[in-house]
């Protein structure tokens, strides 16, 4: 347990929440994008979080593998940014859109596929990420002030 481990843990939380906010911003900016380089409309992206094991000695990792219940304290890490495949794309009738279906024989004539981004969901996620960021900043301040107080013992 080092002097600055608490700061590293809070910093990982700040990084993760900031990345989440960036992904939300990307979703909101692309809420009406019907054309992407991969083809098709923009698909909503989500971030995956996982608890990060701290880099520690072999003895403590071995003990954990043997089933001791004390958890690893390493903060959080982002496992990846994946596309949301569970929410379906929205199908909107708009013949004036340049990406609408042009084939009169197709049942989708005049329909265009829009991204599956729901603005209200993104707004709520944005608030959640922002509050989590604030909480991590407060904890980082508390850890820093505790360390500085410890350095003043006896002076």
């Amino acid at each position, binding site marked *: 347990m080092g002097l600055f481990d608490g700061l590293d843990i809070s910093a990982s939380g700040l990084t993760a929440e900031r990345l989440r906010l960036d992904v939300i911003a990307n979703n909101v900016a692309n809420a009406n994008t019907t054309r992407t380089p991969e083809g098709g409309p923009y698909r909503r992206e989500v971030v995956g979080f996982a608890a990060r094991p701290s880099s520690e000695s072999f003895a403590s990792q071995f003990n954990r593998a043997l089933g001791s219940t004390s958890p690893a*304290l390493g903060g959080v890490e982002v496992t990846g940014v994946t596309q949301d495949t569970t929410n379906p794309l929205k199908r909107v009738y708009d013949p004036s859109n340049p990406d609408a279906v042009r084939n009169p024989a197709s049942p989708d004539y005049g329909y265009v596929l829009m991204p599956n981004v729901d603005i209200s969901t993104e707004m709520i996620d944005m608030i959640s990420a922002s509050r989590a960021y604030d909480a991590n900043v407060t904890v980082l301040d508390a850890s820093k002030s505790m360390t500085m107080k410890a350095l003043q013992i006896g002076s």
Partner: protein
Amino acid sequence: MFDTRSLRAIEKALDASALRQRVYANDIANVDTPGYKRSHVDFEASLQNALGESEGDLVGFRTDPRHMQIGQPSTFADVQPTVVLDNSSSLTNNGNNVDIDAEMSEVAKNQMTYDALVKQMDMQFSMLKNVITGGQ
């Protein structure tokens, strides 16, 4: 001179409080992680045991080191803060049981406890300094 019981107790409490801060930082950093369960630090009960202040515990009286130990061992050097995983409940849909309000208030309490302990250690040292310099 520096190995008094009170200084050792304060030192152990400071270690536990620093570990507690790390555990809370980890909990708050993982407030959005699916499936994450919060942890807490157990320390006060074992410290009280070691200081001999807990009442009503049945402790076996040993006259020989080969006697079996009944009740909690109360050697002071064995008192360690332990991190305990809290598997109990789940507050949200994604399996995460971190309550952000409870954690933030625990952080505030822990910070004040740490400051109080640091002040106590300061006072111990200044008492020693006073004695050494003869009150000058």
